[in-house]
């Protein structure tokens, strides 16, 4: 009986690495990237979701993917712009995920893509669809049939003409959520100056109108 337990323990030890995250985490310290790293998402309310998201950002023209594929239903991204890359890592104690969403930090988003070969691991999950929503701010969502726990997504890509700041990002399922902050496009100084000038002009016109009345 003791021998049986020893064999079981040995098999268990060998099985753990097989169940663990086999990703090579290619975005953390990605060569040529402007910034990169990994963020742990905090569960919102009664949530058992346990998620890390790796990220990297490249300046326009410096990103070279391996296999760039379009995300169904979303405009294709442009490597000639800033490239924002994310990889969702669903940790063993978590639950299967279906959605990854990210806000822009106020800047516009132009396209989505994914790269199934940027991470050599073969068990990464590709999105079946995605969408960019124009609003205040713009935001993007990637949809998966399910990223199991443990499991991870392919490298997800987003393009924007604008440089990064940090903005809200989220994951969802089992009716539960978790969120963190990730690099995302922020309006350039020129846009901010133009916006301020526009507001000033509106204020000045309003003041003139009131004085005229």
């Amino acid at each position, binding site marked *: 009986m003791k021998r049986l337990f020893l064999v079981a323990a040995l098999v268990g030890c060998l099985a753990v690495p097989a169940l663990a995250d086999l990703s090579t985490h290619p975005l953390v310290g990605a060569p040529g990237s402007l910034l990169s790293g990994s963020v742990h998402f905090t569960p919102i309310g009664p949530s058992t979701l346990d998620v890390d998201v790796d990220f990297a950002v490249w300046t326009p023209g410096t990103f070279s993917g391996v296999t760039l594929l379009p995300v169904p239903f979303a405009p294709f991204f442009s490597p000639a712009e800033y490239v924002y890359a994310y990889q969702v890592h669903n940790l063993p104690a978590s639950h299967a995920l279906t959605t990854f969403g990210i806000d822009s930090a106020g800047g516009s988003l132009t396209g989505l893509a994914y790269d199934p070969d940027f991470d050599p691991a073969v068990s990464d999950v590709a999105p079946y669809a995605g969408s960019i929503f124009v609003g205040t701010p713009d935001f993007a969502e990637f949809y998966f049939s399910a990223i199991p726990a443990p499991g991870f997504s392919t490298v997800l890509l987003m393009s924007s003409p604008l440089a990064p700041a940090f903005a809200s990002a989220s994951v969802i399922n089992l009716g539960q959520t978790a969120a963190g902050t*990730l690099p995302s496009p922020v309006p350039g100084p020129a846009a901010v100056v133009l916006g301020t000038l526009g507001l000033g002009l509106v204020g000045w016109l309003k003041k003139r109108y009131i004085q005229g009345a």
Partner: protein
Amino acid sequence: MLSVALRRSLSVMMLLPTSVALAGPLAFDPTGIPQFTGSVAFNASNQLLVDLDYAVFAPGVYPDDGVNGDDPSNGAEYVYAYQAFNRTASTRALTTVSVGLVNDQTGAHNAVPDPLHVLTGGVLPSSMEVNLVSLSVITRFLNPPVPAGGYSSVFLFTSPNRPTYMTTSVLSGGLVDTQMAPSPLPEPATFGLLALGGLVVLRRRRA
């Protein structure tokens, strides 16, 4: 001439206290199971403010608005109905509502919108899916999303099992919030079998 259902809804709405004025008629449907009819408020960073109305109907009770197929189970199962209201104070459009499932034995299926139920004219879901891997019923509003000040159509699913409360979430890009809403409880027979299995394992271990 107003339909009976609409007149009933309006008369119920007129009786509502002002504190719950944001909820629609589904939250006060007198034919819903009382403990599982109401509204829950979601707030993601004061930017995504959503009221999710819900009502669970016992088999055969879900009202027929005169359109075939309102209840996809044809009266054989419990109907779990929801309607999302994105408040005018929201700065964001709503894209996703996810109702959590206790496990993969809840019998949830038949996920469909019912655009002609009570408050009509709502945004139709782009897709509805019972996902037994992520244990959730996912309703997406993508084209278009539910705008601030707008509301969804009624969306529902059916199950042979009675309700309990389970985690439920709304999402809009990077913004999310989680609350509790009705969801099917796996049938007692499933729990009974699980308990029996556990007893057998315990007995074998002792032996």
